[in-house]
């Protein structure tokens, strides 16, 4: 498997233009734009129901968009399934965790991408468990996540550790972008701080990290840029320089519009 290294810092690695998404008569996205840059943390914020999770699911191949365009490294792409996004190097930590509690950390890390034994046994579908365990351990070590037992089902881990497994899985496979949909929502202070450290470490490897969070202090701590979504549309995109919590809240609620809301091509 050869994958081009992540671009240099600041390159627009993933862009979305004019994305709309309808669920029946609910219009979750109404012409949303989005940009994520290599080696940066982009925070995606917005009120409940603004369309953040929907946008992430479209950008990771879970849903198809009703209309609009997705660009990777400036070229248009389309994802028919999560595997298509995986193939391009886009990984996601979903708001509702996508780990399997009954299986071990390494089984979870290699979920759907199991390593097979070399030779005939591999062609017969035999798993290469030692390799998967070793490479999982490498990934955990690299992101400084300590797990006591690599063989026990992850249902025996704490919520924060399970979250770490999901994040490490995304980081291990991501070559371009890691989406994290509210990774700290269920975590305590210490675990949250650790997760934010994890976010920084992943960013430092050169991939783009997109962080969805309702915690504005977290956002200000780690984000390089902040994209604000309201009612299915991006209404602000700002560098994290001297931004305050009231600025962000104002942008989310519309008390403070930094960008005029008239955009072309928006469904009525």
């Amino acid at each position: 498997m050869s994958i081009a290294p992540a671009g240099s810092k600041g390159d627009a690695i993933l862009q979305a233009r004019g994305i709309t998404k309808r669920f029946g008569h609910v219009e979750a996205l109404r012409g949303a734009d989005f940009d994520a840059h290599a080696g940066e943390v982009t925070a995606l914020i917005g009120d409940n129901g603004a369309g953040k999770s929907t946008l992430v699911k479209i950008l990771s191949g879970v849903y198809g968009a009703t209309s609009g365009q997705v660009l990777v490294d400036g070229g248009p792409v389309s994802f028919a399934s999560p595997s298509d996004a995986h193939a391009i190097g886009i990984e996601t930590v979903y708001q509702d965790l996508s780990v399997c509690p009954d299986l071990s950390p390494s089984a979870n890390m290699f979920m759907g991408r199991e390593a097979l034994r070399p030779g005939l046994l591999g062609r017969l579908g035999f798993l290469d468990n030692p390799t998967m365990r070793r490479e999982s351990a490498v990934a955990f070590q690299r992101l400084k996540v300590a797990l006591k037992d690599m063989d026990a089902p992850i249902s025996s881990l704490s919520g924060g550790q399970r979250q770490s497994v999901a994040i490490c899985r995304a980081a291990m496979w991501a070559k371009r972008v890691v989406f994290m949909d509210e990774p700290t929502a269920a975590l305590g202070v210490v675990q949250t701080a650790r997760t934010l450290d994890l976010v920084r470490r992943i960013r430092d490897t050169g991939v783009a990290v997109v962080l969805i969070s309702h915690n504005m202090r977290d956002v200000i701590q780690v984000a390089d840029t902040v994209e604000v979504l309201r009612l299915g549309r991006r209404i602000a995109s700002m560098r994290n320089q001297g931004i305050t919590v009231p600025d962000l809240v104002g942008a989310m609620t519309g008390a403070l519009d930094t960008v005029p809301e008239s955009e072309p091509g928006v469904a009525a």
Partner: protein
Amino acid sequence: MSGDAAIPGPAGTADAAGLLAPQGLGRKLKAAAASSPFYMGIILLLLVAFFSFLHPATFASSYNVRNIFLDASVLLILAVGTTYIMIAGGFDLSIGSVLVFSGVVAAQVMLQFGTDSLLTVALGFVVALACGTAWGVFNGFCITRLRVSALISTLGSMGAALGAAYLVTDGSDIRTVPNALIALGHGSVGGVPWLVVITAVVSVIGGVVLHMTRFGRHTYLVGSNPEGSRRAGINVSGHLLKLYALSGLLAGFAAMLSLGRFSTTTLEGHANDPLEAITAVVLGGTALTGGRGTIIGTVVGVFIPAVLANGFIIMGIQPFWQMVVIGFVVIAAVYADQIKRQKGERL
């Protein structure tokens, strides 16, 4: 440029020996000793020891042991399929009827074919496997494409397959079975009945595929978190379809073994098979919610009721007590498992 710290990715080879060191044999043994198959295996051994001690001449006689194994063999083949289905979070109530249907059609075809040779038997196997697989694919189609729940889909085909079997035979058993097949059903190799050998081979293959291959791993993943599996790029519907087909295939296979053993289609004899298979699988520690289970556990789970029924008969206790006891044991086993899990799990 911070990109030069690019993730080495899954091909990375950093030395992680420090992290891997504690995964020793001792830890594995400890985990195994805390598992349901282990507890249940102990219970099975105690039962065997108890009956053998009380009635060494009858219970422990080679004739009786042979009988226990023969009685368990057809059910174990069905239970192997049920183990896969239940690990994947599914249900298959149709296996008994599918067994009867496959047996009836195979018997009919072998009868029409006329001759009594290994070729006839081979033809019978092909027909029975095809019938079983067809019902399994039908179940899988209803469950994954029509999205009718597994309970209802397989309940429906349970009735339909049995009705169809009665239609094929006009309601009475076909008692003409090729001698070559009866020879298989009654013959032995080195003192071990063929049926037992075949069942052992099927169970071992079932266990190896479940525990060592990607197919098996996906079975656990799909049962543990179907939506997560889909997002991880696993074809969840396709996998479930294969599992129901496998369950049907094994029912078709069991049908031929049953024909060989009883020399008749036993139309009335398999109504309880699915429930007995589910009981065995649950006794063996497979979770009803999916994601957990082993073939070795299922083997133990098949033998506990079989040994109990046999032992009761030998002790002169009414064999109906076995049903009463097993009923309560299943409830107790699942309860104990839940308690153990709640302790081990932090939420």
